[in-house]
């Protein structure tokens, strides 16, 4: 199962290497609404509050400190 996932990821990565969005086509991709970490500082406060009420973690950055568990 894990090997299949790894092979699929490698195949996908191989496909990616063929794809090129030309620099003059990147205007939309550079738009703030297309960023994966847009408004990251404001979102960090919201994610901090949510994650302290759930058992899960992940999908955001690694930086951080403290408990703030209340």
């Amino acid at each position, binding site marked *: 199962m894990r090997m299949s996932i790894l092979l699929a*990821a490698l195949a996908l*990565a191989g496909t*990616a*290497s063929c*794809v*090129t*969005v*030309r*620099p003059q*086509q*990147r*205007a*939309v*991709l550079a*738009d*703030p*609404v*297309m*960023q*994966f970490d847009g*408004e990251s*500082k*404001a979102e960090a*406060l*919201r994610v*901090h*509050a*949510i994650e*302290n*009420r*759930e*058992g*899960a*973690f*992940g*999908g955001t*950055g*690694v*930086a*951080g*400190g*403290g*408990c*703030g*568990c*209340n």
Partner: protein
Amino acid sequence: MQLTPHARAKLAVAALTAALVLGPLGTARAQVAEFETNHSLFHEQPTKTNMTVYSPSGDLEVTPTNALSLRAGWSADVVSGASVAVKAGPTYQNIHTGADVVTTASVHDFRNVAHGGFTFRKDIVSFTGGYSYSIEHDYQSNSFNVSARTEPLEHDTQFELGYAHNFDQVCNRVQTAGNPATLDHALEDSTGCFTSAPTRTTDPISIDTLQASWSQAWTPSFMTQVIYGVQVTDGFQSDPYRTVVIAEGIQAQEHVPNERTRQSVSLKANLYLRPIKAALRLSLRGYDDTWAIQSETGELEFEKYLGESFRVLLRGRVYNQTGAVFWSDDYTGGNAPLGPKGQYWSGDRELSPFWSWLGGVRALYTVTPKHGRLIGIMTRFKVGLSFDVENFTYTQFTLGGVPIGNAYAYFGGLSINALF
């Protein structure tokens, strides 16, 4: 002026260091500064408990050259409310009819976090390092983080690897040496924490977090990101203030395993809808840990421009998790089968099985002057407002056998950002 050989050597080392650090940066001249302040207000008020948290933050980032950015910031949590201090299960409630076995304790805390860091860029590669220190009445944290990122293939592909390590300490009550955990008493309050008070001690917590991500632009309006994260925590992870009824007449401090390994995989996809000048963002996450909690998260955001400067976001989020393998709502007190559920016990609702939904809205207004600067100094000014509401459905967690039916949480946010 005559310099001693020792002084000359120190001067040479300083000059060499400056040359090495500043030399590669000398040709670029970015000189940008960005200041951002955020304020959020969180409030929840389910049965027996309520919590209000005000979180202000301020961050300054300067980019003296294209190759280097420096950051510093501060954030805080001002906490006021109540939380469950004694937890017993519904069977105990049935045996002790009318007994209020669930009590709450008032909570007031002030968490301060100071952090700083840098990013160094060279061609398609960037390195980031940072440190944060946080302190609250009963918890201290020192956290270091580093990451490396590269953007090959005309920046269409991005790989990032990040690592963080926390050296944390949690305050606890001094327990009687040699006693089993079943005789441990909960911490009464944070008085004396992080002092030499004879009734207080600290327990260390070590947290290692590793994250790898791959972002890919597939078309001029579609991109994806895959993130894998793993976190290993070793140390005292219970709520030191909470006791759980584990036997007739015996209340013990909450007790959970010291080790926990958590991992998650996230898949994100962003699609720009040109005809309506809007973006659709989908995020899916799967999570698993060694406490047997498994969860799935789905989030969908729709953000649309209304004019050039104003944009509005609508979002929905659904979350579902199983409970920790040692979690139970039936720590009843008494003999088997009503006795303690095993080696570990927890009254933590965050470790119980539940699902939640969230709905939210955000509005952002950005001013970017086409000529000159705003009031002579700013090249961009941005202000944002957000509001979210979340509802939790606890499938097993009760308060003395009474289900919680009004578990709503509210988030409000204000963001102000200025670029100089």
